[in-house]
Structures are given as C-alpha cells and as structure tokens.
C-alpha cells in the first residue's frame, strides 16, 4: 500500500470533503489505541503504543550529567537546556521499502529533531524539582530511545504519546549528595527499588504532537491519518499542544501546496481541542494501569 493510483486519491479526497473517510471515521476521529507501560525492565521507564498497525516502543534511560564550567555563553545554554536526548530508530523490518539506509537515517534524524524541539522549552518538565541533583553542576539527563516497529501512518503523534507515557512511567533513584572537605562531590545512589522519585506528576506540562493533514480542498483536514491517506496529502501541519492548550511547537512540512492563513487558524483551533482531550484520556488511562 505504499503506492496509490490517481482515482484512489480522488476517492479518498472526496470522502474527506464529505467528512466520511475510507474506514468510516469522520475528519476528527482518532483511532483507538493500546498503551502499555513498564515493559522494558532495565530501563528507567518505558511504554509501548499500538494504533492499528503503527507500533512504537519507547525506553527512557536516566544518566547523570556533569556541567563543567561553561566555555562560552552559547555552550552553556545548550548544555543547560538539553535535559532530553532523543533518538528515533525506524526498524528496517517495518517495511521492505525502508532498506535504503541513507533515507532511513535522514528520516530518523528528522523525527528526533522534531521531538527535541517539542521539549526544548524549560517549562516542559520542572527541572529544578525533579531533574536537579546539585544545582548548577549535576543534573539528570533523560535519554529517550524510540523504536518504530511498524508504521500505519500518524507516526509523530504516536511517538509523542508513547514518550509522554514512558516519562510517566519513569522512576529515578534517590541520590544523596556527599560533599567532602576538598569540595569533591560523591553520590550515594539508593539501591532500594522503593526509594525512588517518580515522574508521574512531572509530566503535567509535557506536550504531545497533533498532526493535521490537509487533503483535497483547502478547508478539509484530518487527524490520525492512515498510511493510505498519507499518500494523498497536500500539506501537513504538526502542532505540539500541552494540557493547558498551549502551543509548544508548530511545523508545516511536505506537500507541493501552501496553506492559507485561514486554514492554519482553523487547524490550530482543532488541534488545541483534540490535544487537550487526548491528554486527559491518556492521563486517566495511565492512572488506572500504573
């Protein structure tokens, strides 16, 4: 289904214009998905998400980062803000089309960069409260590794939701800081599996991506596209929304056509409403199955 003929595109476009997609959903319907956390035991946190055929596995590993005295302002800023490091790996086995390593690498990097931008604002997670060990010197760095096992469209959204769930599931061991007389700092990491800091409350402001694809006429756009629908898009807008309905990132990409400003305003409105609802449904589900 990686290829599609013109008449099929026509069929899908007309369906979307009349608000009835090929699988019976309306433009604003999201597919049901399954979410499972805590599958990877040796990671600090993990989540597995499956939306129809799209399957994403996310693992979070925490490591301690030492900030040496900054050489220049620029470096210091970069060091300070990079609390999250993202890597995305699309399995070659996800599709026989993915065998071109170079194209796959580029795609992986593009996804990782988008996610990094989403988390770039310091208010995303309260660093001082949860990720600081010694202010100014030692911080927790969260390395987030996402693996895409299979794709049926809507990959970026799936990744962002899975990452949020993985962070909810993440636990950091409590650390006791011992300062010796010579200003040497050593850590005593608590071995007790119960003595941990959970990031459950830290993810309040963590945003997710909502991708809106414009298909057919200028004013019709859909969320949660399938692979077939993604082959028909004219342009794509990825908006990062958090629980407070604030926009955290916007990116317009792909497609040969541009977007009219009116359409963008409509899209942002829709994305805000949908994003907030998805986050609240997700939080409810996560609370029920910790």
């Amino acid at each position, binding site marked *: 289904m990686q290829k599609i003929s013109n008449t099929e595109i026509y069929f899908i476009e007309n369906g979307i214009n009349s608000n009835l997609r090929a699988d019976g959903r309306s433009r604003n319907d999201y597919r049901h998905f399954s979410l499972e956390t805590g599958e990877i035991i040796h990671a600090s946190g993990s989540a597995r998400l499956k939306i129809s*055929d799209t399957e994403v596995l996310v693992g979070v590993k925490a490591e301690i980062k030492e900030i040496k005295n900054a050489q220049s302002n620029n470096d210091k800023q970069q060091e300070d803000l990079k609390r999250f490091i993202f890597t995305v790996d699309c*399995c*070659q*086995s996800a599709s026989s089309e993915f*065998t071109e390593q170079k194209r796959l690498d580029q795609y992986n990097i593009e996804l990782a960069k988008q996610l990094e931008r989403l988390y770039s604002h310091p208010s995303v997670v309260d660093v001082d409260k949860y990720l600081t060990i010694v202010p100014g010197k030692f911080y927790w760095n969260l390395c987030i590794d996402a693996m895409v096992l299979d794709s049926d469209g809507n990959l970026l959204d799936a990744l962002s939701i899975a990452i949020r769930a993985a962070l909810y599931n993440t636990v950091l061991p409590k650390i006791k800081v011992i300062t010796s007389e010579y200003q040497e700092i050593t850590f005593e990491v608590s071995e007790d599996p119960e003595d941990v800091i959970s990031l459950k409350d830290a993810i309040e402001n963590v945003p997710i991506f909502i991708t809106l694809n414009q298909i057919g006429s200028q004013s019709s756009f859909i969320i949660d596209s399938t692979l077939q629908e993604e082959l028909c898009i004219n342009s794509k807008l990825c908006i990062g929304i958090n629980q407070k309905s604030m926009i955290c990132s916007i990116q317009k990409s792909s497609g040969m056509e541009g977007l009219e400003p009116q359409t963008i305003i409509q899209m942002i409105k829709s994305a805000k409403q949908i994003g907030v609802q998805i986050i609240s449904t997700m939080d409810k589900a996560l609370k029920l199955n910790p």
Partner: protein
Amino acid sequence: MTNTRNDGRLNNQIRAFESEQSLLNKADGSARFTQNKSSVLAAVYGPIEVKNSRKQKILKSLIEVSFTPSVGNTTYLDKEKELLIKNALESIILTTLHPRTQISIIFQVFSDDGSIISCAINAACLALLDAGIEMQGLIGSVTLCYNHDKSIYLDPTAQEEKECKSLSVIAYGSQSSQIIMNKTEGTLSMDLYFKSLPLSKEACDKVISYIKLAVKNRIMGTISTNTTSTTIES
C-alpha cells in the same frame, strides 16, 4: 562441574528461551527470539521481486541479510555478521525453487547480552517458518566460548565473551548431523575443539526441538509451563 558462572549457570547450561511469532503486519514472516537479555527480531520478506536487477540470480533466489545493532550505526562487524548468517541460511533455504527472486531477512537487535549471532539465526528460522518459505529442515545455533583455564562455556553472556580466550559460533541443521555454519575467533587447540562439537550438537538439538514446540504451540494454541533451565549432559 563445581565452578559456576557469574549468573549462576553451570558450564554447559544454556539460558532459557522465549519467542514470539508473527509480530509484524507487513512482513511475510516475523519472529522474535530472546535468551534472557539477548533479544533479536527477524523479519522475512519474500520471495519478492529483486530490487537491484543486476544482483538477480537466474537459477536461484537471492538471499539478502540486513543486521541492525541495538545501539549505533552499522559497522564492519555487523557486515561480517550479515555474511555469516547469510551463508547459514542459504544452506537450508531451498533457493532453487524461486529463481530470479529475492528473500530479504532483516534483523533488529533489541538488546545484546552475548551470543547474538546464534540468537539471530534462531529468530530467522522461526521467521522463515512463519513466512512459509521452503527449507530443507530447521536450523539451530549456539555460541561457545573457550576460557583460559580450558573450560568451555555454552551460551556466553557479553561479559563472558569479552573475558574468554576464543569464541565459536556454530549452527546445525535438523536434517543430518552436519555443521551448517561454524566460525571461530581466537586460538584454540584441536582437542578442545573436537571435544566441544558433540556438546554444541546437543545444544543445537535442544534449540531445534524448542523451535518445533514453539511452532506447534502457536498453531495448536497450548502453552507449556515447565520451570527450570536447560542443561546439556556432556
């Protein structure tokens, strides 16, 4: 047999297996094989049209193997792994049945804790069964490491692989007692090598009977529930 290894196993004890089949939708066949912390996913696409028509073989099917490690980019070491696995699988797949086609086998390592080539070959066997590709028989693979004190460890972990004197990856088929693939690394005395062959054969037989059980259970729907680990009597 008094010396135990780091994880409490005996010298000739292999780790417990776990497997899953038909995980991926788009692949013709897929399987995941796990031995404690080593886990590999194998996906099989084929027989399909050859992508690069120059590589097309007139009398046989072209076998393409792709190996992706758990961390980092693919290096020359992974290329070597691809070649070994390809040689092993080419011997058991009946390639002459599908001339001018291609069978792609793609590996993704989830976690690497030693014996990863063996894990991959076992996963490939399950995936090929899932895809319905004609084979001569089943293939089972195991890794052995030879230590400085002349002891032989079966199914080493990554730590044991680093500390050993030499390493051998070996694969047997279910059809006859012939070695399908064997690669050794490091120096090894002939006596030790020949002494270890029957040991490895038994271990591979265990792997093959596990694969049979896995396939049977998946088709029939029953689950086995035994609870201790496998020991090979030397």
